[in-house]
């Protein structure tokens, strides 16, 4: 680096640049928060869906599955599972676990009540309605 670019200048560029881009990030965040009601499907965020999210979290589903593409990559995407499989299949599937098929990936049995199963399905109905800019590319997730 040339002698004309001093350490003091480098320091000023660092502080100025970081503050500027962080403020820009805050501005974009603010705008996103204003725009979210149009895309985040909040009108389908019923108490049941909220309870479903709690079940999703307390069973650590994200440890195997992805949800809108984020999570572990061991088991299928579930953001759109409501559309792909429908409510009855989802409930029956969870209740049938584990398959105990030798050598196959196993999902634990969570002993969910009927109410809890309904809540979880309601959560998936909500996630399937989020506007994800047409992701995933097809129904398989």
């Amino acid at each position, binding site marked *: 680096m040339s002698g004309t670019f001093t350490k003091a200048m*480098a320091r000023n560029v660092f502080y100025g640049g970081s503050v500027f881009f962080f403020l820009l990030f805050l501005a974009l965040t603010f705008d996103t928060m204003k725009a*979210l009601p149009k895309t985040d499907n909040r009108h389908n*965020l019923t108490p049941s869906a909220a309870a479903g999210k709690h079940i*999703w979290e307390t069973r650590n589903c994200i440890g195997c599955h*992805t949800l809108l593409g984020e*999570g572990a990559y061991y088991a*299928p*995407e579930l953001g759109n599972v409501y559309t792909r499989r429908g409510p009855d299949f989802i409930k029956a599937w969870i209740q049938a676990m584990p398959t105990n*098929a030798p050598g196959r990936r196993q999902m634990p049995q969570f002993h969910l009540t009927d109410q809890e199963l309904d809540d979880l399905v309601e959560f998936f109905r909500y996630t399937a309605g989020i506007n994800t800019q047409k*992701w995933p590319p097809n129904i398989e997730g």
Partner: protein
Amino acid sequence: MKYQSQAVALPYFIAAIALFAGQVIFGLILGTQYVIGDFLFPEIPFNIARMVHTNLLIVWLLFGFMGAAYYLVPEEAETELYSPLLAWILFWVFLAAGVLTILGYLFVDYNTLATMTGNNLLATMGREFLEQPLLTKIGIVVVALAFLFNISMTMLRGRKTVINIVLLIGLWGLAIFFLFAFYNPTNLVMDKFYWWWVVHLWVEGVWELIMAALLAFVLIKVTGVDREVIEKWLYVIITLALVTGIIGTGHHYFWIGTPEYWQWWGSIFSALEPIPFFAMTVFAFNMVNRRRREHPNKAAVLWALGTGVMAFLGAGVWGFLHTLAPVNYYTHGTQITAAHGHLAFYGAYVLVVITIISYAMPILRGRAANSPRAQVLEMWSFWIMTISMVFITLFLTAAGILQIWLQRVSETPMSFMTTQDQVALFYWMRVWAGVAFFAGLVTYVTSFFVKGESKPLIA
């Protein structure tokens, strides 16, 4: 070592290496479960093993960062640590919290653990990487604040070098952004949006400041290059990191229910994120080439150069590979992400922590450098672990490309599980690369126990 209180770094480094070993063992379990699905089921289901694997990574890197700070801050500030006793207390508190949390994951049903630890008062658990019980999260904050108090007071008492300032900004940022771990709105889109304020603004933000500061410190020590030159580089690198990385958060906001414009902001800024890593590589090689002394610790120089190169490959190149929105549309949530995650964490953060350990540990043990035999073994461990991780990454990338093709691009897309069966060959190869990585880790640990004539420390 120049100041007695730097010695407190030693237990932190030992704990870091021990937890690193635990992380790799759980990685092997996970890799095996990818190909033998019912391996260790139901004793250790995949989701539990993965949580242990990723949480151990975070905890041991934090141990590494804290140990590095306890070693480096007093030396840079030219004063003793404000309170070595506090550092010792925090060591045991953090170790106990970490070990108890991991044992909780393994031996208590996750839902029961959540109920026991107050998750119904404030639900924060069950989100990727932030699975820790509320009590653990609070513990992390308390330890982090007490730690920051200790090293901030140390710096304020002494010389305020650029390395110390940058390291402290990074560590304070780490603590501040972790607070978003306590914010978990029911609205999934907002949950995900602010979740990234912890995850992205850590690893593609403030952690890069910590990394650059540690690298700069070791480079000053092993090359003897003028501090002015290195500090100017340091400012340039961290400027590039934050200018690209903050808005670069947008590359996580493509498909989670956020506005479409993030595809532009995220693609453009995150496409520039490799630049600071490239600068770090150039920096490391440049400084070593311009060295004014031959430091007896050759191994530390190798780790430092390796950090630059592998961080650029893992975080820079493998990140760029799937960061543009039209590409990410297909790669999002596939093994491509896993490939990038492995090489980026290894190249940037694992290697930088090992770099500072490699430099500091011999000094903490009362010598300038380890014996040549020990160093040869240590350098072997660098090559075995690094090459193994490159292969893990290549196999996961191959699996990812195939997965994308079969499941997302093909006109007759296969289901997720059918696709997984098709790419199993690559998962098998990944497991074997993982075994090789473990052999490298064993070599690394062994190098600490090799005896031999070592260079004495000139006080």
